[in-house]
């Protein structure tokens, strides 16, 4: 198989965020993969520079909001010679169906990638209804 070379994509900036904007600087839309199987929905988001303590996951009214905050990248004493990427927080919102068991959502950050597991509500077990003979 021919090796696949990666292409550079410009970071996409969020134009307006609801309830955000308390911090100066740009906010970016993280690239995500969304996967699903019988048991759960899986959201993987690239948020380089975000530490696990700086991630906020919010789910209300089936609106899933992911917020990742970054700490300053460069030391005060450093001067820029060359700049190809901008630095800023991440924000993205999704609508979910109501099959998600909100109490069992789990998230972790690893190497700048958020892994968010959204378990589905267990299906009601099939029940046999007996017809009582009169």
């Amino acid at each position, binding site marked *: 198989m021919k090796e696949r070379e990666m292409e550079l994509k410009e970071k996409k900036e969020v134009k307006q965020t609801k309830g955000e904007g308390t911090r100066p600087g740009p906010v970016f839309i993280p690239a995500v993969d969304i996967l699903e*199987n019988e048991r759960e929905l899986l959201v993987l988001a690239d948020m*380089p520079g975000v530490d696990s303590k700086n991630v906020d996951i919010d789910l209300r009214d089936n609106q899933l909001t992911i917020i990742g905050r970054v700490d300053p990248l*460069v030391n005060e004493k450093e001067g820029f010679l060359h700049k190809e990427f901008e630095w800023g927080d991440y924000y993205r919102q999704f609508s979910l169906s109501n099959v998600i068991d909100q109490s069992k959502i789990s998230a972790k950050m690893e190497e*700048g990638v958020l892994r968010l597991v959204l378990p589905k509500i267990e299906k009601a077990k099939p029940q046999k209804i007996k017809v009582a003979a009169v």
Partner: protein
Amino acid sequence: MAIIRWQPNPGGVSEFDRLRQEVNNLFSTFSPGTEPFFSRVYPALNVTEDSENLYVRAELPGVKADSMDISVVEGRLLISGERKIEPEDEKTGYHRKEREVGFFRRTITLPSRVDPAKVSAAMKNGIMTITLPKAEEAKPRKISVKTT
């Protein structure tokens, strides 16, 4: 390996951009063997300096440190590696796939002399920072003026 960085408006090349391109081409023809300091290949790099070091940073989320290869050769920094995404089990299907995978390699000409033996690199939260200590002759030197 001439991957061109994606631009939002490729059709709208202005006369000024075209001129700049021409001038850049002119320079690259006259200095064979040296990559332009500015290039549009993955990963995007930010270069900063203080009095002691040069710092080269890249956003490489999900790239394992052991899949990276970094070297300094004759005033140039070479970065290569691969980003893999481990497949989920086969019963898991994709709804959306935006995250990229693949190989990358990038070379930049360093803007000042460095000590290749002291170069170090670290990965943290998907950010790679390469610290390149400047060679003694490249460090700023304060010269005091004596009064006689």
